[in-house]
């Protein structure tokens, strides 16, 4: 085969990995169809989408860049409070209470804080990063608790009113508008994340994750890229938080609590890190199970969550999607083109 033929083939192969595959399209259509199939569970579904977005933000940092962080929940909370405060101050009228403007502001605030704190994860071992991000998340949680005059403390922020979306659609009590709103926003965020990860930027993150020394030796500005992905992830987590505040017209300390970071991480690990879809799928499984098992006894859920975690770490590498990929590699290697090479947690 001549070089130009080979080049042509290789280019096709590379670009094929970037094109939307049928399982992806199916996934999003199926997700949309839930609107029709489960009209009584729309607020649960909205919550799942929001959690999925949070987990996606962690995926960018952990699954692609290999940076362990327990601090994404802080950005989630920041975004939530930003959107809620705007809703409260605007008293239900645009521009302050406009949901889209709220999203943008939430993204800006959490992005700024993310950027300012990104230096924390640039160096140090996994353990150091874990502890530093944990420490910062706890600090922000404490801060929110102490700034009662701003955040409403443990009572939560009351009087949040969100203006109709684009002036037309008001949030209804059935959650229909909320669901569509969340779906569209999450989808847009997802497309952006996907685009970034399929671009050289995403590949360079994987290189950093794989071998930071080698990355530097080929001229990769490692710190610069890490700061970028951390900031982008913070913005996404902020948008997720804002969505929650806007759709529930409420903000509470629970949204900035440490367990948000932990939940987000667990959800991502369940679904599989490094695949982009792991967060959404994990959110689905996680939240549904929590609903089902938690109704039996609250301890039931925590117990089985613990067991699943133990089994996951001991026996299953890469979460659900990792499992699927291994099965695909073993039984149908040519399905959907070459195996994606992003690693798993």
């Amino acid at each position, binding site marked *: 085969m001549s070089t130009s033929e080979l080049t042509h083939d290789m280019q096709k192969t590379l670009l094929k990995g970037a094109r939307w595959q049928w399982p992806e399209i199916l996934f999003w259509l199926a997700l949309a169809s839930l609107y029709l199939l489960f009209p009584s569970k729309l607020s649960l579904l909205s919550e799942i989408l929001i959690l999925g977005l949070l987990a996606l933000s962690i995926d960018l940092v*952990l699954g692609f860049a290999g940076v*362990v962080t327990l601090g994404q929940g802080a950005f989630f909370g920041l975004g939530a409070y930003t959107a809620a405060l705007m809703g409260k101050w605007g008293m239900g009228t645009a521009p302050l209470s406009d949901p889209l403007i709220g999203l943008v502001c939430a993204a800006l605030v959490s992005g700024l804080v993310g950027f300012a704190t990104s230096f*924390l994860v640039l*160096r*140090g*071992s*996994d*353990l*150091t990063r*874990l*502890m*530093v991000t*944990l*420490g*910062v998340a*706890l*600090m922000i949680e*404490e*801060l929110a*608790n*102490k700034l009662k005059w701003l955040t409403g403390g443990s009572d939560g922020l009351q009087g949040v009113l969100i203006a109709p979306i684009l002036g037309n659609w008001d949030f209804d009590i059935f959650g229909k508008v909320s669901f569509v709103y969340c779906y569209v926003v999450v989808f847009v965020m997802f497309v952006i994340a996907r685009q970034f990860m399929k671009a050289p930027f995403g590949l360079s993150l994987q290189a950093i994750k794989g071998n930071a020394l080698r990355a530097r030796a080929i001229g990769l500005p490692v710190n610069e890229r890490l700061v970028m992905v951390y900031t982008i992830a913070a913005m996404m987590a902020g948008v997720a938080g804002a969505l929650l505040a806007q759709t529930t017209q409420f903000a509470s300390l629970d949204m900035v609590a440490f367990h948000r970071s*932990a939940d987000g*991480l*667990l959800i991502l*690990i369940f679904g599989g890190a490094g695949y982009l879809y792991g967060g959404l799928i994990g959110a689905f499984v996680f939240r549904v199970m929590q609903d089902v098992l938690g109704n039996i*006894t*609250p*301890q*039931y*859920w*925590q*117990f089985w*969550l*613990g*067991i*699943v*975690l*133990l089994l*996951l*770490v*001991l026996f299953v590498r890469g979460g659900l999607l990792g499992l699927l990929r291994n099965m695909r590699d073993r039984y149908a290697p040519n399905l959907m083109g070459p195996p994606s090479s992003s690693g798993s*947690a």
Partner: protein
Amino acid sequence: MLTILFDGLAYGMLLFILAVGLCVTLGLMNFINLAHGAFAMAGGYVTALLMNRLGFSFYLCLPAAFVVCALIGVVLERTLYVRLYDKTHLDQVLFSIGLIFVAMASVDYFMGANPQNIVLPASLQGRIDLLGASVGIYRLFVIVTCGLLAVALQYGLIRTRFGSRLRAAVDDGRVARGLGIDVAQIFTITFAIGSGLAGLGGALGTGILSIDPSFPLKYMILFLVVISVGGTSTITGPFFASILLGVADVTGKYFIPSIGGFIIYTIMVVVLILRPQGLFVRGGSR
């Protein structure tokens, strides 16, 4: 003022006994066992059960808690933990979180969510005057016991053969193995002692700490702070770090209640940024 310092000292010493096992485990096998707090919780529950249901004396519960938790530690280490030594830190963290959840949920289910209360023996109740301050006898007992344990640990580490083998294994496991030191065995023993101490700490501190199902998570963070500030290559590092934190926490909560845990988290983050190895490190390879 002195009373507060004493309280802080008691809290700090207790923290040390609770956390020392975790520090050594991390330094020895580079293994993060966040579930360490579950052993402490177990010690507290064992004490409460033995005292409240079986009428045991408080003093008897202390060695009992140690033994029970050490045994649990050995079993868990040989069956579960040993599979995780080669895994990434993230995997280890996730695993230990899973373990905590299982422990917390089980305890909640069988014992309920309310904190366990015990009645301290009469010999430990009341206060005495020490150095012009009014000090609780119980807290004095805690300080003395923990102090003696700390000295014993340091002695054991520096003066015994087991201690020198342990230090060799911490310094460089490969070389230690090459010298014929059974590192796996050392680890099991160390893990057992560490878990036992955690249990003992939980038992000893039943009157100070809140023994309820959320204990492991609440105190996990404190243990992590002790590690970050104290480093993992010595015992003296975590010792002073615990005292520092205990005093800081108690005085902070007393004088500026609005700050609360903020100080502690800030200390941890600042220390980790400036010196990722901790403040009191010996300058070793970690």
